[in-house]
């Protein structure tokens, strides 16, 4: 079996995710698909399995042009996609999960549980894995859930198995089992697409590496003929243009020290410091734990031990309220879920954390609230006719400005920004960068978590790289190159 995808292009609205993608998958080959977040890897695989329709390009399977209308149809033809977010029903047992969509029934049309159990057991033995088949799936480890998912795919006689970051949530032992299963599949002539950010795994387990960037396939090389450095260069290979304003502020003394912080469910502790007027970029791959660290610092999620010292004073935040009192603001990555009450007016959103400050008597003064919201909205250049309009009437970029406005109203000394420019247009991005510069020149310190490497490089005074819940390194601006960051982020040296 050979699958050839040629000249694939796909746009979502005005966002051209795939421009010109060419990739060939062969039976018995493990094909690594690599690239930064947003490079288009998942979209490409979703096109292959029929979730999305390509705008241009062809897919041929053994020379025959093919398109599937749905992932279910693709599965029927032996092409299965195991997503990072597993499709399991947590309330059903692993066995019921395996057979929900293709149950075995007896002559009366009743479920034949015994037959299903026997078949599944036999399959487990064949793959040399040990699964608690009758246990509720939600109570099984992620690794067990994933193995069950792979098992399900195998029972469909899959010829192509696509795995999206399968090892991200696994323990070392589970990962080893996963690799053993992959090798077995390979021996059976299954083609595997392995989407991963982990260099070591890719180089030890895969045969071919294809790198994607900005909707193009940049290179396809056999693992034996390439190096980590080369792959990283292919992944990031762009220069940072004049898009980012110059950093003019020189960071001052240390204002915040985080020492030995252990967010819940982290194996490692986190330590770093932040200077006055500094922008500390926080880079890392999706799922590395950057957001969790920030949420632990701000007191949204609890943490086990560790010290946070603000201007020499040790602090312990149990809830966001405490952090806010200490002068820290948190701009969430989940604008719609955690940043804004979309039903509320722009003004009510901006004044929400500032009610006490604007109306110290707790009796609301309409004019004062309006002036407060209106001036902040204007300062940030929110494009709206009136702050009385609901927040839901704004575009993404303007919504983000409202989120920032509501926090700036508190005059914080430290602002944590989690993906401050995600999903917003270029103009608004530049506005936000300029604002970050203005704030730091006034002595505000910023921690900026970002998955966009150019943004991290363009705006940060220092870059902290997180890899698998640990600080992989902190780089000065002069030493922060795309290669150095990607190397640390993928667990390289």
């Amino acid at each position: 079996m050979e699958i050839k995808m040629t000249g694939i292009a796909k746009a979502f609205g005005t966002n051209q995710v795939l421009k010109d993608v060419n990739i060939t998958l062969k039976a018995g080959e493990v094909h690594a698909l690599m690239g930064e977040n947003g490079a288009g890897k998942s979209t490409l695989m979703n096109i292959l399995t029929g979730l999305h329709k390509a705008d241009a390009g062809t897919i041929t399977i053994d020379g025959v042009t093919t398109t599937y209308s749905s992932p279910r149809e693709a599965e029927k033809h032996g092409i299965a996609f195991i997503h990072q977010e597993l499709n399991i029903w947590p309330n059903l047992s692993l066995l019921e999960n395996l057979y929900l969509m293709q149950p075995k029934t007896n002559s009366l049309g009743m479920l034949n549980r015994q037959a299903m159990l026997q078949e599944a057991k036999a399959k487990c033995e064949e793959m040399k894995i040990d699964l608690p088949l009758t246990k509720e799936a939600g109570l099984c480890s992620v690794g067990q859930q994933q193995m069950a998912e792979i098992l399900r795919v195998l029972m469909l006689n899959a010829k192509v198995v696509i795995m999206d970051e399968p090892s991200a949530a696994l323990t070392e032992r589970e990962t080893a089992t996963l690799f053993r299963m992959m090798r077995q599949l390979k021996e059976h002539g299954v083609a595997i697409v392995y989407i991963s950010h982990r260099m070591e795994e890719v180089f030890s387990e895969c045969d071919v590496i294809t790198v994607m960037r900005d909707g193009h396939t940049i290179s396809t090389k056999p693992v034996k003929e390439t190096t980590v450095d080369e792959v990283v260069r292919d992944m990031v290979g762009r220069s940072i243009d004049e898009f980012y304003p110059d950093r003019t502020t020189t960071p001052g003394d240390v204002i915040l020290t985080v020492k030995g912080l252990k967010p819940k469910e982290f194996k490692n502790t986190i330590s770093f410091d932040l200077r006055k007027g500094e922008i500390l970029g926080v880079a890392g791959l999706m799922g590395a734990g950057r957001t969790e660290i920030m949420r632990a610092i701000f007191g949204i999620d609890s943490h086990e031990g560790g010290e946070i010292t603000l201007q020499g004073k040790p602090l312990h935040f149990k809830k966001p309220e405490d952090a806010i009192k200490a002068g820290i603001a948190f701009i969430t990555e989940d604008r719609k879920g955690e940043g804004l009450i979309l039903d509320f007016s722009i003004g009510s959103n901006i004044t929400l954390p500032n009610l006490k400050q604007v109306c110290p008597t707790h009796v609301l003064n309409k004019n004062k609230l309006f002036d407060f919201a209106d001036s902040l909205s204007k300062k940030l250049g929110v494009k709206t006719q009136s702050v009385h309009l609901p927040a839901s009437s704004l575009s993404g970029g303007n919504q983000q400005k409202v989120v920032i406005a509501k926090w700036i109203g508190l005059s914080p000394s430290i602002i944590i920004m989690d993906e401050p420019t995600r999903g917003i247009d270029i103009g608004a991005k530049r506005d936000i960068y300029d604002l970050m510069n203005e704030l730091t020149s006034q002595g505000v310190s910023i921690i900026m978590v970002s998955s966009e490497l150019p943004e991290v490089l363009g705006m940060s005074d220092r870059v902290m790289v997180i890899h698998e819940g640990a600080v992989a390194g902190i780089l000065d601006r002069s030493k922060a190159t795309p290669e150095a960051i990607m190397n640390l982020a993928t667990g390289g040296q």
Partner: protein
Amino acid sequence: MNRNVTDTIKKLGPLIGLIALFIIIASLNDSFLDFSNLRNLLRQVSINAIIAFGMTFVILTAGIDLSVGSILALSSAIMANFIVGGMNPEVAIVAAAGVGIILGGINGIVIAYGKVAPFIATLATMTIYRGATLVFTDGNPISGLTTDPTFHAFGQGDIAGLPIPAITMFLSFLILWFVLQKTSLGRQTYAIGGSEKVSYIAGIKINRVKIFAYALTGMLSAIAGAIITSRLNSAQPTAGMGYELDAIAAVVLGGTSLAGGRGHIVGTLIGALIIGTLNNGLNILDVSSFYQQIVKGIVILLAVLGDRKKA
């Protein structure tokens, strides 16, 4: 501009419904608009309205309180016991309100700190408080409480032709309207119902606001109970049964969303008036109480369906 117009119509919807109801019933029976009947109507409405005002706060936080009827009964029984024991009846009313705050506060604490779903938490306390009432009274009414005229006036009296329960209702309305619309506490009540996550991250003391809402509802239920007890000069262990449904209906009829974050107390007042007018009007029209239930249910359904369409 357009938006404002539709907004206004939406806000006026319940009021238009109430006026229509008035016109229909008045055209079918002359005595409906008699001053004495309208006074009677207000007196009947006041108990449900007072409870529903509290319920509005609770529902705006995306909660619900099923225990209002049981709180009403238990606080009344305790009040009656105090009076029988020799306490000044006016002081006993204040004590009953205090009991209501405590019982409602317990609801709030279980919901806020115990993170129990409001429906379940108040379903449980509804049963517990009712059981406690039966234990406390041994299942018998506490009757013949007092001859104190001020106490009797609380449920039966008039000032300048207005029933005192109605005055209590209007006073609570004014105070609570102010709290909800004009204070940061009110704004935060809306915010929690709009998005608890956003509110938490914005540093709002979510637990305190929730406990306030339930404690307030408890207090208002106790005040409603004191009105009933004053009227009957007796505390009934089965008082207030099913009152939670009338209160919720009034809130919903007034346009407040059960999902929280949207609505207003003006609507609740109108909603309570609609329910009261229906009860009163159908009685005057001699409709059997069996049919009354059906009509009430249909009106609630129509009101909510109409609201959906506009949204």
